[in-house]
């Protein structure tokens, strides 16, 4: 009887407290952020390194967790903002859920003929691995933005679309999510960069377009055109 009560109490406790599924990644993530912060000469460089590791992690997550067939079933044959928005709502949410443990709020907006702007915001109050206290200037959302960038670029690869699409992600200024784009490579890189800066003037402040290009090539073997 006492064992049953104990089990019930544990289940009850789980509803209100983070479980080991959150605690262990949280401790490990804290250790990683702490290590990077200490080794980096400035918070900006620490954020850039968090982003870089994020790109790598996101790529692995996408490879291991998604099936190319599932992705393909919702992927539009050509650039269609509405169908792409649906894709983001399904797979973007699923990816976010798998990584963070909760669903995000998603908003999309067609910016140019072939550029879709996307914002993902966390639902406040949800526990997750990245909810940690950090030194001033360190922003854990760079890890998540990097992870999303790596995951999206890898998804394009799995869909056989890496030569046709681009995607970059950065933290929201409000500190509760990330923003980025899906764009056809037919669009000039400078025009895409302009859209990013118009949406958030600091979009490329810490992790530049060139940084994204470098990390994609270094970690994923993927070429992103440079700005002219």
């Amino acid at each position, binding site marked *: 009887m006492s064992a049953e009560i104990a089990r019930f109490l544990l289940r009850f406790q789980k509803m209100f407290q983070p479980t080991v599924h959150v605690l262990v990644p949280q401790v490990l993530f804290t250790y990683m952020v702490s290590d990077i912060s200490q080794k980096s000469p400035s918070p900006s460089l620490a954020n850039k390194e968090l982003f*870089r*590791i994020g790109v*790598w992690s996101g*790529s*692995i997550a996408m*490879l*291991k967790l998604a099936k*190319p067939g599932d992705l393909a079933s919702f992927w539009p044959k050509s650039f269609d903002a509405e169908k792409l928005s649906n894709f983001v709502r399904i797979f973007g949410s699923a990816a976010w859920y798998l990584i963070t443990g909760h669903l995000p709020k998603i908003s999309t907006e067609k910016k140019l003929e072939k550029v879709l702007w996307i914002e993902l915001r966390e639902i406040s109050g949800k526990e997750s691995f990245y909810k940690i206290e950090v030194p001033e200037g360190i922003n854990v959302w760079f890890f998540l933005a990097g992870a999303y960038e790596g995951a999206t670029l*890898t998804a394009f*690869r*799995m869909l056989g679309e890496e030569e046709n699409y681009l995607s970059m992600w950065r933290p929201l200024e409000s500190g509760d999510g990330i923003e980025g784009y899906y764009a056809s490579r037919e669009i000039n890189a400078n025009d895409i960069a302009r859209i990013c800066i118009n949406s958030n003037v600091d979009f490329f402040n810490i992790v530049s377009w060139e940084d994204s290009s470098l990390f994609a*090539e*270094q*970690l*994923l*073997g*993927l070429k992103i055109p440079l700005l002219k």
Partner: protein
Amino acid sequence: MSLYKLIVFTGPKGAGKSSLIKSLFPELDVRFEEPSYYRDYMLAGGLAVREVAGRRDAIEVIMAAIAKWNINVGLLVVDSSRPLEGVAEPRFLAVIERAEKKALVANKVDEQGSQVAELEKFALEKGLEFFGVSTKTGVGIEELKKWITTGEKTVKTIPTPVPPPVPKPPLPIDLVPVVAKKTPDKSRLTQEELEVLELCDGKRSINEIAMKTGKSYGEIKKIVDKLMSLGYLETLKPKIA
């Protein structure tokens, strides 16, 4: 005591003594066969080059008279691509022991397997100057000549062997691709993809495969992504790089 100040060249047969003399003093009519005991070449200014035979019996004979040699410069010439044991023989060191200036000259530094670092260490232990040269390419010849004639050694002549670049993994973590138990038909893969798949043994990481194939981390990751998507790989195991 000999009338001339001597520049003595000693060392094992085949080390390149004659070639080195010719490289340093092109005006001399150098003979390339081993001398019976030693052979002299006259230089201007009361200097002479003396090439000593490398044979043990020849050196034993010479040692009886060597005290009377007025050795200004003593050079122990060795083939740097050969094992150090032959160089360390005391008889060669004995020939140049009384020289005012003495040096170990590692010839053939351009050849594969050149043991420059070991020879330099040996020279340091024996109190010898050290020069790495190649009579074939001319490396180090001018510096050695300058030291012989003026005693100045301004330029470090040891051509430091450049180790092959080892690509650094882009992150401290790496991934080990694990091949699926049941893989699809391999005929769909390119030669490059097949090569990478064959290197996936469940232990080798992406960076190790990159090093083995001479490709970058990114290039291998791209292939691994494709192999994973197509079902040739089962999983990617994280590994400390």
